[in-house]
């Protein structure tokens, strides 16, 4: 599209052939480029709406401020594209090292729109106004073919149905996180780049730019401390909440998905949790109030049971269990939410109860299955024999 404007100057120049008038006089340019029917060879309009341009952020500029290669009229057929970087050097420098650095694929106008109708980013008409950003980025990042080509997830639909997306699109909240809140704008880096705000160990800080309290809480917990110590196996915000499809944590869907997420690292704890009534209820759905990992352990500032501030510290168990179980007392909280009935050393009483019940079950059934099978065979044999002897039918 940009090239069209330069071609327009060429054509404009041809129209006023012979004149030595410098092309910085806007009326001169518009004498050709004000014509709505003016098109380049491929049929793109070369018309500039003087009114719109005048109202835009660039309205005070002269044509030649950007189209610097056009000095005179007539101008050549092929003109050098305008360089935004001549004014916006910082942004251009940022873009240069980013994932969008290939200029031919990502000219400034893909995000900012027509340079002749550009508005400040706090103007709702701007393509980079906070409420417009997801749609602007989504033009590419909501495209399946593009996502496949670059091996990226198709994030726009995930984002727009997330709690951030709803806050932005439904409530029009300017403070709702949009794409650039986390990814930045010009200097966007891959999440694999340690400089990126979406690099794993930077995520708590990135989310914390809005969720400061939660991040402070998180950094005080075991996961935050591990991340701070450089252990990238520890989960950050996006490991539990996901990056784009973030749900309201009290929502049934999130409560249903949260347990396997914790269990993907804490496998032994998930396995023993699965044996409990908490898990059995939880798995059936429709009753999302049943205890999930973080109902007892806390969500962000998770502390080991040995820490007196932990909700699962012995002294706090009555209060923690009591959140759901009215009347929980010291004896009640002796219940082990992660008891392992298969472990004789850890849970001897439970181990022997289970062993007894299994032997009772297996013993009773084995005896009676044999007993009843023999009985079936014998009485059928007798029946057939008796009827045959009576000369009747035998079945």
């Amino acid at each position, binding site marked *: 599209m940009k090239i069209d404007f330069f071609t327009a100057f060429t054509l404009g120049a041809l129209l006023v052939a012979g004149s030595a008038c410098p092309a910085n006089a806007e009326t001169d340019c518009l004498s050709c480029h004000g014509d709505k029917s003016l098109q380049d060879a491929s049929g793109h309009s070369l018309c500039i709406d003087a009114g719109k341009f005048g109202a835009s952020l660039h309205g005070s500029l002269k044509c030649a401020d950007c189209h610097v290669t056009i000095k005179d009229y007539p101008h050549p057929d092929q003109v050098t594209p305008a360089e935004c970087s001549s004014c916006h050097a910082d942004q251009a420098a940022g873009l240069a090292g980013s994932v969008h650095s290939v200029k031919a694929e990502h000219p400034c106008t893909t995000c900012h729109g027509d340079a002749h109708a550009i508005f400040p980013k706090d103007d709702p008409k701007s393509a980079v106004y906070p409420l417009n950003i997801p749609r602007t980025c989504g033009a590419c990042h909501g495209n399946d073919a593009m996502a496949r080509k670059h091996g990226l997830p198709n994030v726009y639909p995930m984002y727009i149905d997330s709690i951030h997306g709803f806050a932005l699109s439904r409530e029009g909240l300017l403070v709702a996180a949009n794409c650039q809140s986390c990814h930045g704008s010009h200097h966007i880096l891959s999440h694999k780049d340690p400089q990126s705000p979406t690099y794993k160990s930077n995520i708590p800080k990135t989310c914390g730019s809005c969720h400061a309290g939660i991040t402070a809480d998180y950094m005080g917990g075991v996961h935050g401390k591990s991340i701070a110590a450089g252990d990238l196996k520890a989960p950050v915000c996006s490991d539990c909440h996901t990056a784009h499809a973030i749900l309201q944590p009290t929502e049934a869907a999130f409560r249903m998905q949260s347990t396997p997420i914790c269990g993907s690292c804490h496998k032994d704890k998930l396995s023993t949790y*699965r044996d*409990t*009534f908490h*898990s*059995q*209820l*939880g*798995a*059936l*759905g*429709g*009753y999302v109030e*049943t205890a999930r990992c973080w109902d007892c352990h806390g969500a962000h500032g998770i502390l080991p049971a040995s820490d007196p501030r932990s909700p699962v510290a012995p002294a706090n168990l009555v209060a923690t269990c009591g959140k759901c*179980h*009215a*009347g*929980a*007392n010291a*004896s*009640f*909280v*002796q*219940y*082990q939410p992660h*008891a392992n*009935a298969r472990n004789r050393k850890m*849970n001897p*009483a*439970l181990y022997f*109860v*289970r062993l007894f*019940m*299994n032997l*009772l*079950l297996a013993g*009773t*059934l084995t005896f*009676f*299955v044999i*007993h*009843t099978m*023999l*009985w*079936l*065979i*014998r*009485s*059928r044999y007798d*029946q057939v024999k*008796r*009827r045959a002897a*009576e000369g*009747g039918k035998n079945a």
Partner: protein
Amino acid sequence: MPDREQAAENESKDIQPRGRYFMRFTPGQRYLHAVLFTTFLGLAATGLPMRFSESIWARKFASVVGGFGSIIFFHKLFAVVLTLAFLIHVKDVFTRAWVHREKGIFWGSTSMVANWKDVKDLWGHLRWFVGLGPKPRFERYAYWEKFDYWAVFWGMIVIGFSGYAMWFAPFFARFLPGWALNAVLVIHSEEGLLAILFIFSIHFVNTHLRPDSFPMDMVIFTGVESEEEFKHKRALEYERLKAQGKLEAKIAEAPGIWQIKFSKVVGYTAIAIGLVLLVLTLSAYFS
């Protein structure tokens, strides 16, 4: 009804008048069985999805009936009804034994309590199965019927206690040790599984599907059975009553056509539900 057919075949040789029927179960006992099997099916249908909550059918069932909240509601409802039926039965037994001074409740040929003859019968029956001896002759309640009764009785106490301990855990925690709260779920689910597997396979076959009763023994529904069936299945009781001159007192009206049809509908439905649950249980258990 092979036994009825056989009865018909035998009738020409039989000196007894045609079609005499004898009372085996009182209406109270039949109602008790009806409440027992209805609530048991309900408890099994709502308990199994909890026991095998990871299986696909459990989740499907839960979503159809309105999620876990509705499953546990019905589980508790059936449990309360069954508990009441159990308590009424226990009260009846003690009233009969100690208020009405009825004989033979706790001991003797008509009692549900096991005795030495039951041990001999079991041994004799096993020998007969493999052709090593004659078929034992049974009294009013055979050993496997007593086992069924006591299995339910023991199951009621064990499953009931562990179930209420989970339902009212903070209360039970006042006098139970902490590990017991873990144990009650293991006990409840294993004993429940045993009951389900036992009833839907062993009890169904022993009582209903074996050749002498196939496809269903109607006596628990109609309360009466034909004289031939009585003589064939419980020869000792028949002879004892005859010798005591009490046989005539047991004569009852033949069951009406509607009663048999109704019993068949109810009975086959119960057996069908039970077999479906049995298949689901086995598939979940071995997957």
